[in-house]
């Protein structure tokens, strides 16, 4: 404000306006804290968590640009610029791990993302509360089973004498082979098991969103002659669209994040060509070979891509649908 004006009076005035505004703002916050102190108290652990576990460790990101030496420590290690990033981009497996990470994530978004939405829509149509509750409980139970256990089960089911291994062999009329040793099936197994594990849990949010839709809209739709299907298309889906878009933006931010655990527990030499991802590569380089700087550089590279994707999606969403994170 008042950029061109050099009059001291105006400047003082504008400053005082700013001060007044700030004061008002602080006063408002103070009042808000006073009024809603319990809510702030509930939020406090989360805020502390983020400061300690997300912001403080950012100090360590610098080792990606250094030759980190364990004895010398972070600050005393010499700077090497982009050396580790260049090494990663030039490494033999660069294209492969980036591509695999993207493909698993892409298929995950394509199939695993809509699954809980469809599930929530279907569940919404069930009229028997008892039955709906039962289905819901059963489907979100796998979420609480540890990944290690799930992978152990997958190993057993997919073995040459496991029920899935035998079922697929019978279906295709071939000899039973271990499904986890076939690169063609890796992504399918990965994503299907992911859907099985998380469909119930992830649908909770959508179910809540559906319950929040004003019943009057349905009544209006019925009066207009809409059937069940038309109600779902024209009322329910638009009603939960903001939730879906926010979730999608989050999902985009994780596009290059394929969880380490599950891939690590399921992959083997026969499927490396499709299953070796950035996180497993980072693990091997960083923790097994103790190349901390290098693996930090790889992780940072990954994070930057994720951030760009998140920002882009958010930008597009804001322009197109007016729903956005920031």
């Amino acid at each position, binding site marked *: 404000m008042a950029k061109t004006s050099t009059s001291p009076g105006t400047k003082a005035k504008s400053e005082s306006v700013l001060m007044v505004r700030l004061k008002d703002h602080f006063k408002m916050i103070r009042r808000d804290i006073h009024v809603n102190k319990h809510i702030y108290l509930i939020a406090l652990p989360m805020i502390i968590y983020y400061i300690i576990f997300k912001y403080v460790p950012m100090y360590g990101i610098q080792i990606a640009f250094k030759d980190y030496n*364990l004895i010398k420590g972070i600050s005393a290690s010499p700077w090497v610029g982009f050396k580790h990033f260049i090494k990663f981009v030039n490494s033999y497996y660069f294209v492969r791990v980036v591509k695999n990470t993207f493909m698993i994530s892409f298929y995950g978004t394509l199939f695993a993302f809509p699954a809980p939405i469809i599930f929530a829509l279907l569940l919404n149509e069930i009229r028997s509360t008892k039955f709906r509750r039962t289905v819901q409980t059963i489907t979100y139970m796998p979420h609480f089973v540890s990944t290690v256990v799930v992978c152990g089960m997958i190993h057993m089911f997919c073995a040459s004498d496991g029920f899935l291994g035998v079922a697929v062999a019978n279906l295709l009329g071939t000899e039973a082979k271990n499904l986890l040793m076939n690169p063609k099936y890796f992504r399918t197994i990965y994503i299907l098991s992911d859907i099985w594990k998380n469909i119930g849990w992830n649908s909770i949010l959508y179910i809540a969103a559906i319950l929040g839709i004003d019943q009057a809209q349905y009544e209006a739709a019925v009066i207009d002659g809409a059937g069940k299907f038309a109600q779902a298309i024209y009322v329910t889906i638009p009603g939960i669209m903001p939730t879906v878009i926010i979730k999608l933006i989050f999902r985009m931010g994780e596009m290059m994040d394929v969880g380490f655990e599950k891939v690590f527990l399921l992959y083997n030499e026969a499927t490396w060509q499709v299953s070796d991802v950035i996180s497993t590569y980072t693990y091997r380089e960083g923790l097994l070979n103790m190349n901390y700087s290098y693996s930090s550089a790889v992780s940072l590279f990954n994070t930057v891509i994720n951030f760009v994707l998140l920002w882009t999606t958010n930008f597009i969403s804001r322009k197109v649908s007016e729903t956005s994170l920031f």
Partner: protein
Amino acid sequence: MSNSTWKRISSAGLSAVILAGLLAGCNSGTNTSSSSPSSTAPSNSSSGSAGGSSSASSEAPSQAVPTLPLSEPVTVTIFSNFNAKFVGKVENYNDIPFVKWWSEQTGATIDFQTVANEVWNEQFGLKIASKDLPDVFNGVGPYTGGDLQALKDGVIVSLTPYMEQGYMPHLSKFYETFPRYADMARTSDGDYLNVPNIRGYGENLNSNGLVVRKDLLDQAGLEVPTTIEEWDAALRAFKTMGVIPFSPRDNKWLNTNMPFISAWNMTYFEYQDNGTVKYGATQPEFKEYLQLMHTWYDEGLLDPDYLTSDTKTITAKVSAGLVGSYVGAAGGNLQNPWYAIVEENVDSPIEYIGAPVPTLEKGATPKIGPRYDEYTANNGFYMSSKCANPEAVAMVLDYMYSEEANRALFFGVEGTHYNLTSDGLVDAYEKQADGSYKSMGDSWKPGFGDAGPGYLVGILDYANKTILDPTGSKVAVPMPLGDNPDALALKKRHIDEVRQEALSLWASFEAVNRVPALNYSVEDAQARADIYKDIETYVYEGVTQFIMGQRDLDTFDAFAAEIQAMGVDKAMAITQKYLDAQNGK
């Protein structure tokens, strides 16, 4: 049972356990050192009661050096991984009777900080990053660049000064007596960095090998297979009998234990041919190997689930009698699953026996096979740079190389865990009222298996089986017995005959094509590792694809060319340089 030699350990054998005696035989492959057994023999009779001080003081060059046990209380913290053999038996190495005994004898409080094997590498890095270093590292394998780099970075310190000042008389004497091991342990700068872990020699270096079901072979009217052709026939016979013909643990297992690739006198990776370093996966013969493995896999002669198997699944399959052959280890997978079988049912016809390293031509001697190095860098005890009482710690570590400690590592304390008989034999068993025998050593090594605390890295880490003494007679180490007396008889026979035979069959090759352990400089080691790391990943993956038929064998030339393109020649040149130096070229 009293006539069973396995219970009795000759005193000559005892000397074998004592390093001095044991290693005399391998000094130059012949029995040149007669002084060694004679010097150790008298101390046998006074074992157990002898503290470290008596022998230490007689060897110590300097008067000023204190003797053990230490007069001042000292705590020695040792950061160590935790051998899987001990899992479920003790919480920590500190609970092992031997470690308590070691503490008592040296007057030091020995405190192991152990971490599980699976997280050893991570925890090692965290430990160093935390700057809270222990007094001693039990191995520095995870450190990038190994012990040399760790010394350069100031993580560990050289032991040479302490040896020169006479704090480590036993180790000094050992190196003096066996310069061969001194050469292996000494760095290019002339430093001794560790109290090493010497594996021994001869059969001790071969504890893995092929194992087959003898009863099934008999049923098929086949002999123990020795050639690839005979193996082919045996596996086909097993297939018709409804068992999994061969079950490797995984692809890496298929290589490192070299069950079949050794028939072509090579490995997947580096090997030498008359002093020339070569790379297995690029050789034309490698294609033949892949062809065979592919055929075997395709026809169901290899376990269809081998890539997703681990030790547990294999052991379970072996114990259930579902496997015709596999790779076993003496002291481990060779007998343990089978012990479980006979403990359950003594009449079980299932019997596993060892088979030799296979060859292409009958009667040929293989030039390579599974073998450990006698000395492996980055193993053994390393003193950290933050060690509070380096002199005292040097003495405590050095004590591991004393005769008493060696004997205690395997047999325990005389009078409590074994008795010396009038004719100088060790009897570790007590006759019970019902005529059965009970191992006296059980309290010394509750359920640890044959070697007991011998698994504890120090010296003779891996003596879980027989050890040759200088006179060539064999020494058997007692084993846990179990409850079933009928099974006991079978197990005894197994230990006596089957395992002995397996060990000698597995060692039935000349390791001339093997690249020995070479003392690379830090830079060369790093350069070599950087190249080989990517290539190894590529080879394992390629081999798997060829075996499983995902990749056509016609593309083998492209596969080999890709390895060339990844710079294999550069890495091989480094190895060649050091190999030539060692060969005196």
